């Protein structure tokens, strides 16, 4: 498959270009006047906020994606629901642990469960994930023990898991960097002739970074099997998407020569379908895709952030009505897909998870001081050896001083 053939692909949607010309002449550097995207963005949606399945016959665009979840059974739906509930519980527990001083910081995924579980469950074991610092739900789908995610937020390590065990790379804090790593990994996959795919997660703010533009360029030029999964949660700390872009994010892909899709990020089924579709394209050798999951960060950016300084309560309330978990619950209840016993059992499981997380975190030991010098190099290094020995002798001098007393 050549790059031209993917470039020729019709963009999923086109809109929002009408107003650009006038805005450009406004001669304002700081204050953007025009709104960058549609007031009511068109989304790929399979489950409405009320929990009703969308009639795909009404909507040819959605119809293209619906087949990708045709195999999803009621049991699968319950599984997706369970994933979202447990992920939210884990996240809530971590937030509470931060408040209790057990963690130095926490980046909550509250509100983004559907985007993460839908895309995470679309992956195959041999696919490779490059997350940022908020992908706790994706980690869950990869089988990473959630307590492993807490080490770096507690301050006992900078990672906490072996990326190759679950094909889930370490969290990346420097914004956008990992999109290039994902692209390079995907280039390697293609060179190997494997049919695995790679997925890179990033935020709407990250889309402003040069690294992300370069990842788009490389992946297009080398037709790499990578899915760029942007969770547009509307905010980059205090900056709304208007501070990052003037056209809807998913449309950017077109300029690089690959398709972009905007999906309802609070609809787990649609996220699953669209991600599967994009991964299939990658596996078939059709190159990269940009998926924009249109969602919302319900909590603070991190536990250090105070969103009341920059965002209105009404906005948050409007998004509450689109809650990804309540929507699937409504569907399961209305369709008879789950009964009270299911929800009760899940509540008990949730409690148990919360308890385990609390216990593990509180028991997490501080690292040994000499760990400072561990793994600085794979081959060893004379300067590190020298400093390690000096520091060990220095620390030992306190012990002998104490013994002397």
């Amino acid at each position, binding site marked *: 498959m050549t790059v031209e053939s993917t470039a020729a692909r019709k963009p999923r949607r086109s809109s929002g270009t009408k107003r650009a010309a006038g805005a450009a002449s406004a001669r*304002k*550097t*700081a*204050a953007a006047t025009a709104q960058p995207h549609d007031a009511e963005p068109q989304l790929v949606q399979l489950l409405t906020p009320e929990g009703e399945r969308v009639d795909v016959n009404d909507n040819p665009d959605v119809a293209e994606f619906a087949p990708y979840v045709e195999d999803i059974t009621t049991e699968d739906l319950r599984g997706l629901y369970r994933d979202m509930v447990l992920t939210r519980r884990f996240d809530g527990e971590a937030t509470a642990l931060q408040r209790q001083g057990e963690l*130095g*910081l926490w980046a909550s995924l509250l509100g983004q469960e559907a985007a993460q579980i839908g895309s995470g469950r679309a992956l195959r074991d041999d696919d490779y994930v490059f997350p940022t*610092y908020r992908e706790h739900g994706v980690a869950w789908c990869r089988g990473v023990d959630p307590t492993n995610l807490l*080490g*770096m*937020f*507690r*301050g*006992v*390590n*900078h990672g906490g898991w072996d990326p190759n065990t679950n094909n889930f790379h370490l969290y990346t*804090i*420097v*914004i*956008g960097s990992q999109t290039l790593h994902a692209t390079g990994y995907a280039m390697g996959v293609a060179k190997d002739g494997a049919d695995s795919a790679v997925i890179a997660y990033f935020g709407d*703010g*990250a889309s*402003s*970074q*040069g*690294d992300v533009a370069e990842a788009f360029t490389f992946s297009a030029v080398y037709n790499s099997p990578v899915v760029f999964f942007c969770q547009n949660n509307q905010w*980059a*700390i*205090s*900056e709304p998407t208007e*501070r*990052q872009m003037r056209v809807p994010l998913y449309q950017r892909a077109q300029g690089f020569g690959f398709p972009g899709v905007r999906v309802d990020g609070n609809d787990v089924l649609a996220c699953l379908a669209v991600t599967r579709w994009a991964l299939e394209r990658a596996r078939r050798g059709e190159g990269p895709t940009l998926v924009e999951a249109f969602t919302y960060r319900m909590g603070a950016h991190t536990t*250090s*952030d105070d969103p009341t*300084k*920059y965002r209105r309560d009404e906005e948050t309330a409007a998004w509450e009505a689109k809650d990804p978990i309540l929507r699937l619950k409504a569907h399961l209840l209305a369709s008879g897909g789950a009964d009270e016993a299911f929800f009760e059992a899940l509540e008990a499981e949730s409690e148990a998870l919360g308890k385990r997380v609390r216990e593990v975190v509180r028991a997490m030991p*501080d*690292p040994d*001081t000499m*760990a*400072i*010098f561990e793994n*600085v190099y794979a081959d060893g*290094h004379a*300067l*590190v050896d020298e*400093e390690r020995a000096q*520091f060990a002798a*220095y620390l030992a*001098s*306190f012990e002998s001083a104490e013994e002397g007393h």
Partner: protein
Amino acid sequence: MAAVKMSIAKALNESLRKALETDPKVLIMGEDVGKLGGVFRITDGLQKDFGEERVIDTPLAESGIVGTAIGLALRGYRPVVEIQFDGFVFPAYDQIVTQLAKMHARALGKIKLPVVVRIPYAGGIGAVEHHSESPEALFAHVPGLKVVSPSNASDAYWMLQQAILSDDPVIFFEPKRRYWDKGDVDVEAIPGELHKARVARPGTDLTLAAYGPMVKVCLEAAAAAAEEGKSVEVVDLRSMSPVDFDGLQASVERTRRLVVVHEAPVFLGVGAEIAARITERCFYHLEAPVLRVGGFHAPYPPARLEDEYLPGLDRVLDAVDRSLAY
């Protein structure tokens, strides 16, 4: 005398406010600097009072922030940009090193680049990785840049004014763990020169040289040493490029011993340059080799180890003892 007690954070905020009031060409730019007032609130209230044309929330792109600041400076503005944390300056490192630092020389001195890059830096706040680094040597090594770091509220206020007034690019490192430390600021004083070292505590037996967050540790060490009958002088270097070698030399000629302290890794750090120069200048005065105390040749560790990693009172006093033992 108009001295007011304020935190370093407040002093920086007042300093920016003064600069915005004084010169309509001064602009503040960075991520979250507007409505939020910056993640450390250093720019708190400035957008409200000076508007979005003067205090500009930028896209999340550091290369973009510094690159466009260069363009604005070429157009006659004086941008003061904020990099959110030390570890995030590297996407902008290319613009700073290959462009900002060299343009004045390339243009035969015909253009000026009055850009200030403010960077909250160094450790001690229990943060996750990339939020605690001390990259000052990487900038001090680059010809064309000036690199400074205040250690107290008065310097925070005055040095930032002076950095903004400078026609050269200035990398302004703010010791983030000291943001809440309070001190007297005399907003009507006549400040000392931006690149002059300051004797923060006089002494006769040994000189401790430091800048930014380590000045406080050195003052505490000097106080502890005094209890043991040792008279330790503390020199606050204030500027890492240029370094006030004359001022430091004068101190070392008095005390005959020098220990340089910084958080950054010792290997090829600012202390290495100081040790070499002072050895050259003061060879016949020195009673001991110049010693250095600083970070290890290892990545900044996770928060639970930073107290051990960061030079504290004991490590500084240990070096003082080693120097005095010669």
